[in-house]
């Protein structure tokens, strides 16, 4: 019996309706609050690091770099200790959006792929998740720079 395309289309539409009606919804409020609290807490830690540097006479602009470096180190360490993925499971975007999460994507990929070799595994796959952020961030930054130059 050959596949009846029209019949299949009807069955697909009917099934997608069933799935839509019966699919459990994520606990949106709970997820939002957890992301809010954990993300906020990570930023508070960042603020403490920032003020540690500004208290030593750096301006906020100057202190931004070292602060990010410290946070990146903390994220990398938490990943190595196997804590950061649990934090991600708990708080979703709360752990993913801060720079510590960016650091986690790089370390997690590096740890995972080192078994396929240090050069072709770890080295080449380190940016498997963080890469798109760099690509689209850089492309949009350069485009915005061009627009600013043309506009002024």
């Amino acid at each position: 019996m050959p596949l009846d395309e029209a019949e299949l289309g009807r069955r697909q539409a009917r099934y997608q309706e069933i799935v839509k009606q019966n699919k459990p919804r994520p606990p949106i409020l709970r997820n939002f609050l957890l992301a809010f609290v954990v993300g906020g807490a990570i930023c508070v830690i960042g603020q403490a690091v920032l003020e540690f540097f500004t208290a030593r006479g750096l301006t906020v602009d100057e202190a931004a770099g070292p602060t990010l470096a410290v946070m990146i180190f903390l994220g990398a360490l938490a990943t190595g200790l196997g804590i950061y993925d649990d934090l991600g499971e708990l708080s979703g975007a709360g752990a993913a959006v801060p720079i510590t999460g960016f650091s986690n994507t790089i370390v997690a990929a590096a740890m995972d792929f080192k078994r396929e070799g240090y050069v072709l595994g770890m080295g080449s796959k380190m940016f498997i998740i963080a890469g798109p952020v760099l690509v689209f961030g850089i492309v949009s930054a350069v485009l915005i720079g061009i627009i600013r130059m043309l506009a002024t």
Partner: protein
Amino acid sequence: MTYILAFLIGGLICGLGQLILDNTTFTPGHMLVLFTVLGAVLGGIGLYEPLIKLAGAGALIPVSGFGSSLVRGVMVESQKLGWVGLLTGVFEFTGLGLAAAVFFGTIIALIFTPRS
């Protein structure tokens, strides 16, 4: 006071990310790219700097802060160097973070193995 603002603004940005994950088909990768580009655009029209002034790490630490730093470098350098600055400026303020991530990432990956 800055701590409260850092908590509120940083938390809100992350919460917004979570709403996107729960209500769209975006993967975390898509969401992070979106936030980086949004940060770059807000930086480009001069709205992200005031947010950092206000909330400090609350605006700096989320990945949108990374996007705005990319643009800030491009704008600062292109004013100094012209067209060349468009490209050299990208890593002006983000280079340190990137190098730190690659360096610490490699060290940590050499020491630890995945567990859970």
